[in-house]
């Protein structure tokens, strides 16, 4: 029998980026907000202090900062004919646990999606015709436009103190920025990070080939920054330990460095750690959420009643919770009906390693210190002759030069021993790598459901992921990789190693944590779980945040868009609080 806690106005599942934003906005609106976090409390000092955080073995190799698969994992298969098996080690992606969520361990690559990304189906049909879209591709529009999200992108960028160079302010192209970006109302709050030697190489080579390189937008502060909430950040030290580490210098935007100092002072906000939410509870009609049930660290089942529930966990966990709670119709891939678990998507990455003579000192880096080109992202180029949908950016990121996992060796270098050491010695300071970051569309065959066999530590069925790279994506990624190689070859004295992504998708090697979909947003309840405001179609006092609402994935890192959607949804929630009910009627 679950113990019952006193009710609150709003309960948030998870306490990462989206929960912090929603909590800050709704507490300002005057309601009582409680966040339930499955992990631990963490703060810059002592948890990310620079005397121990730059420990690659502990954090990057032994993965001490991520979720623990022994508590929560998923099962995986490439297609429905296979039997899924549980992931016992993290691999292809690294979900977080703990206050701040993945906002603690991200690199800080903070992009906006392109205006066409939000209307990809109508745009593609209009430009290339209906027949251009593969039959099993569940391509769909978002139900929200770039123009509607622009002020919310802006809010997130000013919250985080993004360092960058605008490319399009109110329709006016600005030299040095990304000429392909959607128009923004104003420039970034901070100037770009200092360039590193490798990004200068890339910049020159890309210009030579005829592209328009620009500094990547970075949530690593290039200057001391005080955000609109009054929270103070320090400037980045280029220590090269962003991705998979917390920042010890208050330089990388995270809930801890941008919101929590203000949020935690409020009387109408509370949070509890080590609380794993296992159900969203509904009343007898199934149309109203009554709160959540969670399991604390002692194993006690606890019921937390609330007037409103917001799912702010990692993308797959939000979907898992909906399925376990039997909210919304689960997706059926055979009939292509149902919505929960539908349109899971990922991203497709590849790289071109570059070996040349100039000393680059890669250890002076920052998570989002990079130079990119956007010529081949979204629909910035004519897809007609290529026969695929989607694209991605090509960038040289100088995230750091960590000794164990961040070095590049020629293909023929020995894998161990004196020969390996020699190759390391000869290449560590001079090698670099150009990355491609490609979109993945949604397909009938890519989905999430409950595993029929495997259960988690709480006795609940594990989430099952069925996913593979489709020909459209492999073709697109190959195209991007060739373009990256073109840039690599333009670097003086360079020899290159082109590392194209091959199918089938393997969940073992790390690729990216940008999992999307499963609880997608849209205009039609038959093909979406939440409406354009991220409010559940079935249970209007339930909301879903984060990348699980992306109908398909774009060719950019998702956090900027997650932040913008969260602010967009928070505004809708404030209207809902005044007049509860569905904000969209069908």
């Amino acid at each position, binding site marked *: 029998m679950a113990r019952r806690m006193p009710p609150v106005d709003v309960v948030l599942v998870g306490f990462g980026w989206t929960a912090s934003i929603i909590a800050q906005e709704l507490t300002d609106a005057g309601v009582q907000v409680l966040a339930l976090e499955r992990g631990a409390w963490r703060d810059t000092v002592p948890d990310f202090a620079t005397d121990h955080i730059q420990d690659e073995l502990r954090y990057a190799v032994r993965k001490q900062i991520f979720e623990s698969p022994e508590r929560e994992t998923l099962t995986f298969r490439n297609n429905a004919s296979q039997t899924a098996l549980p992931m016992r080690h993290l691999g292809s992606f690294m979900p977080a646990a703990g206050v701040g969520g993945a906002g603690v361990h991200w690199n800080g690559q903070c992009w906006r999606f392109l205006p066409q990304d939000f209307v990809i189906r109508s745009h593609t049909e209009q430009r290339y015709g209906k027949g251009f879209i593969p039959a099993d591709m569940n391509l769909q529009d978002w139900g929200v436009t770039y123009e509607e999200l622009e002020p919310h992108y802006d809010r997130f960028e000013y919250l985080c103190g993004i360092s960058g160079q605008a490319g399009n302010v109110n329709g006016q192209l600005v030299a040095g920025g990304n000429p392909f970006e959607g128009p923004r109302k104003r420039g970034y709050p901070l100037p770009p990070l200092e360039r590193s030697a490798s990004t200068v190489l890339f910049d020159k080579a890309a210009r030579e080939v005829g592209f328009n390189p620009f500094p990547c937008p970075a949530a690593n502060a290039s200057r001391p920054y005080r955000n609109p909430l009054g929270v*103070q950040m320090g*400037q980045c030290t280029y220590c090269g330990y962003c991705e998979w580490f917390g920042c010890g210098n208050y330089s990388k935007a995270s809930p801890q460095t941008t919101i929590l100092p203000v949020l935690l002072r409020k009387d109408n906000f509370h949070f509890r750690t080590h609380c794993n939410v296992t159900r969203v509870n509904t009343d007898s009609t199934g149309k109203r959420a009554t709160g959540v049930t969670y399991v604390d660290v002692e194993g006690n089942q606890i019921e937390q009643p609330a007037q409103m529930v917001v799912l702010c966990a990692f993308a797959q966990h939000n979907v898992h919770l909906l399925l376990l709670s039997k909210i919304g119709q689960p997706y059926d891939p055979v009939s292509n009906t149902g919505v929960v678990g539908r349109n899971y998507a990922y991203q497709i990455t590849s790289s071109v390693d570059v070996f040349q003579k100039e000393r680059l000192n890669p250890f002076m880096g920052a998570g989002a210190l990079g130079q990119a080109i956007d010529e081949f992202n979204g629909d910035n180029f004519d897809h007609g002759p290529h026969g695929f949908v989607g694209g991605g950016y090509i960038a040289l990121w100088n995230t750091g030069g960590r000794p164990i996992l961040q070095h590049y060796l020629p293909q023929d270098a020995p894998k161990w021993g004196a020969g390996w050491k020699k190759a390391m010695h000869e290449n560590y300071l001079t090698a670099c790598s150009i990355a491609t970051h490609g979109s993945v569309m949604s397909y009938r065959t890519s989905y999430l459901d409950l595993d029929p066999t495997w259960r988690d530590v709480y006795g609940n069925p594990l989430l099952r992921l069925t996913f593979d790279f489709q020909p459209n994506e492999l073709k697109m990624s190959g195209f991007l990789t060739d373009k990256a190689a073109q840039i690599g070859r333009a670097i003086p004295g360079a020899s290159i190693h082109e590392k194209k992504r091959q199918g089938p998708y393997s969940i073992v090697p790390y690729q990216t944590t940008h999992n999307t979909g499963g609880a997608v947003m849209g205009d039609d309840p038959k093909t979406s779980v939440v409406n354009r405001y991220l409010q559940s179609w079935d249970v209007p006092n339930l909301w879903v945040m984060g990348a699980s609402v992306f109908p398909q994935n774009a060719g950019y890192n998702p956090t900027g868009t997650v932040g913008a959607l969260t602010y967009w949804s928070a505004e809708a929630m404030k209207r809902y609080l005044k007049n509860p009910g569905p904000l969209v009627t069908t």
Partner: protein
Amino acid sequence: MGAALRKALALASLLLLALLCTACSHDRDPAAPSAVKLGERMSPGPWGQISRGRYLVRAGDCEACHTAPNGAPFAGDRAIPTPFGTIYSSNITPDPETGIGNWTDEDFYRAMHEGIDREGDHLYPAFPYPWYTKLSRDDVLSIKAYLDTLTPVRQVHRHNELPWPLDQRGLMAMWDGMYFQDGTYQPDPKRSAQWNRGAYLVKGLGHCSACHGDKNFAGATDMDDPPTGGYAENAYAPSLAGGVRDGLGSWTEQDIVQYLGTGRNSRTSAAGPMAEVVEQSTQYLSKPDLEAIAVYLKSLPAPKDASVATVDKDTLDRGAALYVDNCEACHLKQGQGEIGAFPPLRQSSAVQANSADTLIGVILDGARIPQTTAEPTGLAMQGFADHLSDAQIADLNTYIRNAWGNHAEAVEADHVADLRETLRKSP
């Protein structure tokens, strides 16, 4: 002189005093209660008195000492370490049995004005009555009116841990006789009302010189001396006098207002005990009061600058290397810090203070800038106790205290070792 030796000497001297001064007498000032009125004011109703009291309780930072870590506010039981032993603060909630619920206004005024409790026992000057005696009777009774509104908390006063004969409260009568002068603040007619208000706050309720003033072997502060720096528990509170190098000489009035109101300014950030003072007390002071404090402090003359020996180059070279490795990323190459985020070390009076104990303590155990309403970010620095040896910390301190135009006495490794041990043992 090591902390232990200093403590032993002080104790021995006090014992001697106890034997010699058996018949000290002290005249009380019977006229004090209604002697002074600080300006005209309207006769407030009960609410006005209570809200004034609440403001004054914050200004005096009563909660800091009268609340134990994680304890009920104002219920006392916080251990106050002194060179003579540990004193536990008392319960000032209106609990009739264990708090001040049965105290009359007169009882309370006597405690604040004379340092004598309801039972007639002498209080220890860890309770800053040598400063509070300067408060007007109106202010004291307003404080009482506010404390009377608190929820009564039952919390029995714990026995102080003091050696004989210091545990004999009668001894404090002698201490009072020798070092304590009661009397409400008398405005200086030659100074402005603003200056007098500042002096009243600094020398009275604010009891600034309790930390920022020098203490004699018996733990007493001379109220007429300018606050030229003193020990506050294990930290050193820098001089508030006009010295350019180690005082407030180069600060503007606006710097002082900003520091007390937000916990930071372009010159430094509050840390350690002062961070607590800003968080719990000075950030709540009105702008006119902060400005009055600034006007008063800026009127304090600069004492003669102490002569400081030149430091040898080898030490500076070692310290400079340690600075690059451990400090430069945040405090930057020229010690200029990042304004708003990480405090400058260059031209910092706290860094160049008479004693390096605050700087040593920050390097050993880290520090956190106060979180205030105006500046909510409590940026923190980690400690380096596990990473740097005593000798390294000494070299680093010596370097920081003498780089970029700074100039202050070198730090010895033995002193770092002593302080490391003291801090390790302190709660």
